[in-house]
C-alpha cells in the first residue's frame, strides 16, 4: 500500500461520487438537486485536477484531460445556475434545470472515464 495512491484514488472517486449525487433525481426538478453539492463537487474536482498535474506518462495526460473536461462542465453548470435563478425564487425553472443537470451528467461521464483509467492502470502494474 502506498499513501500517495490512497490519496489519489480517494479524490478521484470522491469527485465521481459527488457528481453522481448531484445528478441523481428528476432532471427538471430543482428540489432534487442541491446547489451546495454542486459547489462542493466543483471544489473536489479542482483538487483532483491539481493532484494530476505533473504526471509525465500518457496515462497521466489522459487523466488530466478527463479531469479538465469535468471541471469545465461543472463550472458551466454552476455559472448557468447563477444566471438562471430568478430573483427571490427557490431555484431555476424546469427548462434551465434540465440544462444544468445535463451539463453535470457530462462531467459525471468524464469522471467515470477517469476512474476506469485509474483502475486499469492500477491493475496493469500488478503490484
Amino acid at each position, binding site marked *: 500500500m502506498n499513501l500517495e495512491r490512497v490519496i*489519489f484514488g480517494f479524490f478521484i472517486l470522491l469527485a465521481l461520487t459527488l457528481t453522481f449525487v448531484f445528478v441523481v433525481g428528476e432532471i427538471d426538478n430543482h428540489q432534487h438537486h442541491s446547489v451546495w453539492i454542486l459547489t462542493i463537487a466543483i471544489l473536489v474536482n479542482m483538487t483532483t485536477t491539481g493532484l494530476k*498535474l505533473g504526471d509525465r506518462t500518457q496515462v497521466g495526460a489522459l487523466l488530466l484531460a478527463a479531469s479538465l473536461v469535468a471541471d469545465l462542465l461543472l463550472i458551466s453548470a454552476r455559472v448557468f445556475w447563477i444566471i438562471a435563478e430568478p430573483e427571490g425564487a427557490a431555484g431555476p425553472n424546469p427548462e434551465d434545470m434540465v440544462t444544468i443537470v445535463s451539463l453535470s451528467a457530462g462531467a459525471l461521464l468524464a469522471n467515470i472515464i477517469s476512474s476506469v483509467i485509474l483502475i486499469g492502470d492500477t491493475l496493469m502494474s500488478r503490484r
Partner: protein
Amino acid sequence: MASTTELDRVAMVVLRYLRRPFFALVLVYAVGIIGMALIPGRDADGNPEYMSLFHAFYFLTYTATTTGFGEIPSAFTNEQRLWAIFCLYTGVFAWFYAIGSTIRLLQNPHFTHALNERNFARTVRRISEPFFIICGFGDTGSLLARGLSDHKFNAVVIDADTERIKALALRDYTVRMPGLCADASVPKYLVDAGVKQPNCKAVVVLNSDEDINLKIAVMSRYLNPGIQIVCRSTSLRHEEHLRELGDVTVIDPFEIFGQLLSMAIVSPKLHNLNSWLVRAHGVKLGKALQVPKGQWILCGYGRMGHWFRKYMAEQGIYPSIIDPDVDLDENVGSEKIIRAYADRKTLKESGIEDAVGIVAGTDSDSGNLSILLSTEALNPEAFTIVRQNDHDNQIAFDAANVDLVLQSSLTTARRILKYLISPLIQTLIDYLHENDEELTDELVTRLQNTVGDEVQHLWRVNVCHREASAAADLLDQNMQLTLADILKDPTGRSKVLACVPLMMERDGECVMLPGDGEQIRVGDEIVFCGTERSERLLTASLNNPYTLTYLVSGVYPPRGYFFNWLDRQLNPSRPANGPPNVSAGTGPATPA
C-alpha cells in the same frame, strides 16, 4: 515521368481502337437526329408539328440503345415511322460495333499490360511503409515473400514469367504484395516498382540468369545510389562486378548451403540455435542434432560441393567425394575421390559401411533420394544429410527417413530474410562460430531458461528520445543505466523479463552477448530475443519514467507536482537524491 508515358500509351491504344466506332456512332446519331427533326409530325389535334432537336436526340437515345419507350410525345406519322425504322437499325448496329470494339480493346494484350503496369506503379507509389523490391519470383523469391509477409513487411515483385505473377495474386499474404510481369532489367519497370522512393529499403535480385541479375543491380544502383542491393550470384566474374557497385550483398546459394551443411556437422548446437532463430519448422532449442565425427562421404562435387569441402577443410574434415564429373587430378586433400555416379557399387567402394555419415548433395532430387535408399541398405546407422533442390518435392523428402534435409531455396530465402530484417543476427552467428562451443551452450541455456517453449521474437531497440524516451532522459542526466536494470520485470523487479540481449551496437562497434552489468548509453542499438510480451513490457518501461525509476531504484516515485512536494516534506532527509522525479534525481542509482 514513367507514369505519363504509360498514360500516353494507354490513351493511344484506346484512341486507336475506339476512334472508328466513335465516329460511326456520331454519324448515325447526327443523321438520325437531323432527319427526325426535319420530318413533320402531327399533334393530338391533327396540326403539323416538328420535333425539336432535343426531342429528336431523346428519341434516338431510347431507340438506338433498344430501350424503346414508344412514340412520344404524340403518335408518329407514317413518314416518321419510316425514318424511325432506319434510325433503329443503323443505331443498334453502330452500338454493337462500338461495344465489340471496346471488348476487343480490353482483350488486347498491350492494353492489359499497359494498364497493369499503370496500376502497379500507382499501388507502389501509395505504399507508405518501408518495402523491398523482389526481382524474380521463383522458389527463393516466393519463400522470401512469404517470410516478409509473416513479419508484416511490404514487398513488390517483378518477374518476367506471367504464370508466376498470376500465382502471386492468389497467395494469401498478410500484407499487399503488388506484382508486375516485366523484365526487371528495364529501368522503367524498376522505377515503377519504386526503386527511387525513399521508403524502398532494398532491391533483392533473385533471377537465375546471372547477366540479368547484374544488369538489374547496375540499373538499381544508377537509379538510386543509396539503395541497398541483395543479389544472388554463383559466378565469380559477376560477383566481382557486383562488389564494384558498392553496398551490394552478394548471396551465393551454394556458399550459404555449404556453410550451413558444415555448420550442421561441425557445430550442431550452433546450427540448432540458428535454425531456431530463423524459426525453421519443427526445430526445438537445445535439441541439437547428434552428428557423429569421423569419415564422411560427399556425393556430388559441383558448386555446392566445393563450398562444402572448403568449409569442412577449415575444420580439418576431408570427406570422400563421389561425382561423375570430378577432376581426379584436382588436389583437394580428400581421402578418396571416385569419378562415378553414386550408385550402390560406388558407395560400397567409397567405404560407406565404415562412414559415419553421408551427404547426398547432387543437383538431382531423384538421385539424392536413391542415394538415401542405398545408404539405408548398406549402412543404416549412417547420419544422412540430403539436399533438396525442388521445393515441390517436399512430400517425398518428408517421407524419407533422413536426419537433416537442407533445401537450397529455403536456406537462401531465410538468409536474405535474416539479412533484411535483422542484419546483426548473422554477425552473432559468425561470432559464435568462431568461438568455443561453450559460448553457444551458455546462450542456448539462457534462452531456454528465459524464452522456453514460447515463440521467440527478435527485435532491436535504439536508445534514443524517439524510441526510448524515459531511458534517454535518464541517461541525459548522467544517471547510470545497465542492461540488468531494463531487463527487470516492471510488475515486480525481483523477476526478470523473458528476453535476452544478444548484442549491442555502439558507434559502429558490436558487443556480442553483452553481460547484465553492461552500461547503456544514448545511441546504443540493442538486439533482443524473447517473447512478444517481454517486448511490450520492455518498450513500456523504456518509455515510462516512473517505471524506469522503479526498475533502477526499487522505489516507485511520486507522480505529479503535489505528491512530489508532499514526498519532500515527509522525507526531508533525501531532498533531491531520492528517485522521486527523474528530472530531480542526481547521482548514480545503485541497483538493489
